[in-house]
């Protein structure tokens, strides 16, 4: 018998949970403290936002919301590694990536507040909106990458799925497409250990999820998803490879969903409390703060100032969201087609007539 193929999956970590640098080779970003401080600030802002969004839902001011608690390093790491010209294809909780790219907090709230205008967000206009049908965003990203390739652009598409999403056909078909067409893309698996109530081990008996990329012939690695420096470095390298026309990379980022799946979920039904408590010691924000403090780049006073600033910013976003009003009845019809069929126009007129001429909603349309 001869071995015709073999593979290994590397695991990348730079920052230990105690905020200490490990490894022989220090990436340049590890010494760029101005940048790391701004990243830390965005991580804290994202968590402040997330906490507020959950509170808004609990008080009836927001619909079901998917929390990103504990995902701040991986999400913001993706955002910081990407350039504006790249295309981001998220699932539905990558707010950190999106904030980095210019999406506004009020827009995220609009979306979960039941308003389509939320997906007409700020930031790069070519980015995909949130994608609820699991893993379908992966083939969209492959299509976007194909468009870039056909046009000879030095750009790339980045998709995100969870550990659950890595079981789906679209993720595997996107890997295959990226391989067959040598597409400029990065397929991220944000493995937070739980797909609602189903644990990682029930998705696959494979030792890693990253190795699914190997089946498609793609370089595939695992990174510590609670380590911003590792995520950023891995995604940056994968993007560089994509820009150079060398094709796609699969990156599995290991993190932990510290929250319920969404506000409609109660994880205490299926997940032991001590597992969550244990996971907290690995969480990304604490780790980054320790690193900055260990290097005399951060202190209690800066922390307190930051918390105040973040609260203020989030409250402003909430005010903006709460004052958005309804999109209006006409808006249900106006974006169905560029040229509205006359049958639909008739339905629109009927619906508008039901509203009456003094409708409050109309004025907000």
């Amino acid at each position, binding site marked *: 018998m001869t071995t015709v193929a073999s593979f290994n999956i590397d695991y990348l970590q730079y920052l230990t949970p105690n905020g200490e640098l490990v490894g022989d080779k220090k990436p340049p970003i590890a010494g760029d403290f101005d940048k790391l401080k701004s990243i830390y600030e965005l991580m804290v802002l994202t968590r402040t936002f997330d906490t507020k969004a959950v509170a808004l839902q609990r008080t009836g001011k927001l619909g079901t919301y998917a929390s990103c608690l504990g995902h701040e390093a991986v999400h913001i790491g993706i955002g910081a590694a990407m350039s504006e010209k790249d295309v981001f294809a998220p699932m539905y909780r990558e707010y950190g990536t999106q904030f980095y790219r210019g999406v506004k907090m009020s827009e995220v709230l609009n979306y979960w507040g039941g308003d389509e205008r939320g997906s007409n967000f700020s930031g790069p206009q070519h980015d995909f909106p949130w994608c609820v049908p699991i893993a379908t965003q*992966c*083939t*969209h990203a492959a299509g976007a990458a194909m468009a870039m390739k056909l046009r000879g652009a030095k750009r790339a598409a980045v998709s995100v799925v969870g550990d659950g999403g890595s079981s789906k056909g679209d993720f595997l078909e996107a890997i295959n497409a990226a391989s067959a067409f040598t597409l400029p893309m990065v397929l991220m698996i944000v493995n937070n250990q739980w797909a609602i109530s189903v644990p990682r081990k029930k998705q696959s008996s494979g030792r890693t999820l990253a190795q699914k990329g190997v089946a498609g012939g793609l370089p595939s690695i695992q990174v510590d998803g609670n380590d911003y420096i590792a995520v950023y470095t891995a995604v940056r390298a994968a993007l560089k490879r994509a820009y150079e026309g060398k094709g796609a990379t699969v990156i599995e980022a290991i993190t932990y969903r510290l929250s319920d799946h969404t506000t409609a979920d109660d994880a205490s039904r299926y997940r032991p409390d001590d597992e969550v408590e244990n996971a907290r010691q690995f969480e990304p924000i604490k780790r980054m703060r320790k690193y900055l403090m260990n290097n005399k780049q951060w202190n209690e006073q800066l922390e307190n100032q930051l918390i105040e600033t973040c609260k203020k910013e989030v409250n402003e976003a909430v005010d903006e969201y709460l004052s958005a009003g309804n999109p209006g009845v006409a808006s249900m019809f106006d974006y169905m087609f560029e040229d509205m069929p006359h049958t639909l126009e008739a339905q629109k007129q009927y619906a508008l007539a039901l509203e009456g001429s003094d409708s409050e909603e109309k004025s907000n349309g």
Partner: protein
Amino acid sequence: MAKVTLVEAVTMAMDHELGHDKDVVIMGEDVGINGGVFRATKGLAQKYGDDRVIDTPLAEAMIAGMAVGMSTQGLKPIAEAQFMGFIYPMVEHIVCHAARMRNRTRGRLTCPLVIRAPYGGGIHAPEHHSESTEALFAHIPGLRVVIPSSPTRAYGLLLAAIRSPDPVIFLEPKRIYHWSKEEVDDDGEEYPLDMCYVIREGEDVTLVTWGAMMKETLEAADKLAEQGVSAEVIDVATVSPLDMDTIAESVAKTGRCVIVQEAARHCSVSSEIAANLADQGLYDLNAPVKRVTGYDVIMPLFKMEKKYMPTTDRILKAVNQVLEVS
């Protein structure tokens, strides 16, 4: 001017658009050097290269998903489902994304894509190669569902579909791919979507159909003419959104209507037309609306497919029923 078949007209339209719009790309299984299993893309890969006419891995969801992604980024993909029976892995992308991208992003991203699929029975094909499930797509808001029934309309409607800023499901009645030849001028003139075409004028009864059933419907109209009955024949062409005005106007003139479709009867395009006639045209009708359709059964394998499909005789029987009502 060349005399071409329906499938050749399909090729002509794609050839024209590939030549005139650099954003147009074709993708699918076997669409490249092989030219498609029905030769609908014959010669196009050789002419435009494999960057414009792309053979894909055998993965229909991927084809549709990539078409969604490509179209949001400014390309105009024409994706082929090799047979309509294989379109179902694409449905998630068609329904959850292509149909709603414009609406859910308030017009920020759009999906100007075409999904082409040969459909319908009558060619002695294997299982899953003969169904007519256009109503599945006609039910989905945000989609256009277009079905040609002649070479000229195949050329003009496909041009319009490719140029449409919104997604179009373009279903090609493969039983009549080679039925008739027509002179088609490759002039880039499109046939507008969202409208029905009156292809034969008449006074006594309106026959409404689309796709391959046009063949039997026209044969029925010829036989009726021999009996002194003047039938108006309408090609629905765009089955969603439906141009009821043209159908209702015709029925206002003739007072009688028979709808002919190959698809199963329940919750079908003919149901929608009949319901609209009951609403818009009841007082114009001199007789009940009759439907000649496939049965509500699984499309049989080819030994029995002719028994499933509406025939000229079944159409004539229905027409005679509506003519008998005075």
